[in-house]
């Protein structure tokens, strides 16, 4: 396969563009929506610094659990008591019950997709890309009721994307290749976070290998070129 972004071509450097704390916290507290959790877990796979932060937020949860007061009846913070001897015996009786084996972990044989994405879409090499817009192909990763679907996109190396406005927040995790815009360079592991009111966004795709990114968009992009606007409206890009 010729257009496989080779993650080994740039040795796995920790990323420079990170997730906002708000999303790391949402992940650690289990309050993130499914698309955001997928984005966060994928970034964390590639970013030791954010992994450390998320682990800290999880440790706060562990601390809150540990510090909860249990009274002599086995109740927490004055609530109903739990786990009397009967309940404990019932629990112990279930310990050796036969159970289904845990599913084997699946990984991308080419090391392009983090495991949380592989669990959704399979191996990178088997993805079925569909044309989305000039220079751009996509694979739907997850439906998002009321929003654009979560997508993987693949953009031709060296492409210059048509200028566009953002009408909602866009979060993109670069998985291969990259792009540059007014903010900076974005490469594997980086998160590009575009605010909802960003106008005239111009992205240039880096040369050599296709840019592959996981994109979570709250609202459609609005292209300046009327023809492109029509295309994106029809496609819901």
């Amino acid at each position, binding site marked *: 396969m010729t257009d496989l972004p080779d993650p080994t071509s740039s040795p796995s450097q920790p990323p420079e563009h990170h997730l906002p704390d708000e999303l790391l916290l949402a992940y650690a507290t289990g309050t993130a929506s499914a698309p955001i959790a997928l984005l966060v877990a994928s970034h964390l796979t590639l970013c030791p610094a954010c992994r450390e932060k998320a682990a800290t937020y999880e440790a706060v949860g562990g601390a809150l*659990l540990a510090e909860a007061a249990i009274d002599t009846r086995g109740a927490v913070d004055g609530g109903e008591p739990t786990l009397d001897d009967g309940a404990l015996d019932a629990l112990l009786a279930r310990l050796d019950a036969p159970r289904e084996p845990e599913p084997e*972990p699946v990984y991308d044989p080419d090391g392009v997709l983090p495991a949380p994405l592989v669990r959704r879409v399979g191996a990178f090499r088997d993805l079925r890309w569909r044309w989305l817009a000039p220079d751009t192909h996509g694979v739907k990763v997850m439906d998002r009721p009321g929003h654009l679907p979560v997508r993987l996109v693949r953009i031709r190396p060296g492409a210059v994307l048509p200028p566009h406005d953002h009408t909602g927040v866009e979060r993109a995790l670069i998985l291969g290749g990259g792009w540059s815009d007014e903010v900076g360079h974005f490469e594997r592991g980086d998160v590009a976070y575009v605010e909802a009111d960003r106008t005239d966004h111009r992205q240039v795709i880096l040369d050599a290998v296709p840019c592959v990114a996981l994109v979570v968009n709250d609202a459609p992009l609005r292209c300046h070129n009327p023809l492109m606007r029509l295309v994106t409206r029809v496609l819901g890009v």
Partner: protein
Amino acid sequence: MRGTGSPAGRGAPTEIDALLLRIGADRDREAFRQLAREAAPRVRGYLRRSSRDDAQVDDLVQDVMLTLWRRAETFDPSRASGWTWIYTIARNRRIDLVRKAARADVDLDDPALVRAGPDAPDRAVGRERLRSHVRDALEALPEAQREVVVATYFEGITFREAAERQGLPVGTAKSRMRLALKALREVLAHLGEGGR
């Protein structure tokens, strides 16, 4: 691990860590009995904040406890303390309940994982020392911030929802959460400094 030079320098494992390790190594039922007495009420307290269905909560508690028994051999105290590990398992059960979609978890064995460089500080110690201080840190927060943090962890709602419940505009909520997180992180950073 800096400055301590030996695994023992991680500090004495807590009682919960020791129980989990015994279960993982020997399938020790007495250890599980003790673990259940400590953990089940807390897990229940955690889960019942986000559900009013007592029967459902009881099922989830049993489920979490069985998961602790089955997966104890994967518990690694160098990655997270016992309580943090238990918290993540209880949290995951809650997510499974709320969300139909498969959960998205980082897999630390993923070949695609980018590891921290050899010079990166091992923060597991400072992180876990946070535990004894988290109460203090939370109590030091203004009440409104504290409520937002606790609600975010225990009630399964986002801080935006927590703020709306208090009748706060999202902007105000956001700045409160930021302040609260900053305060918590400062406590942590302080501990990290002292610990090395």
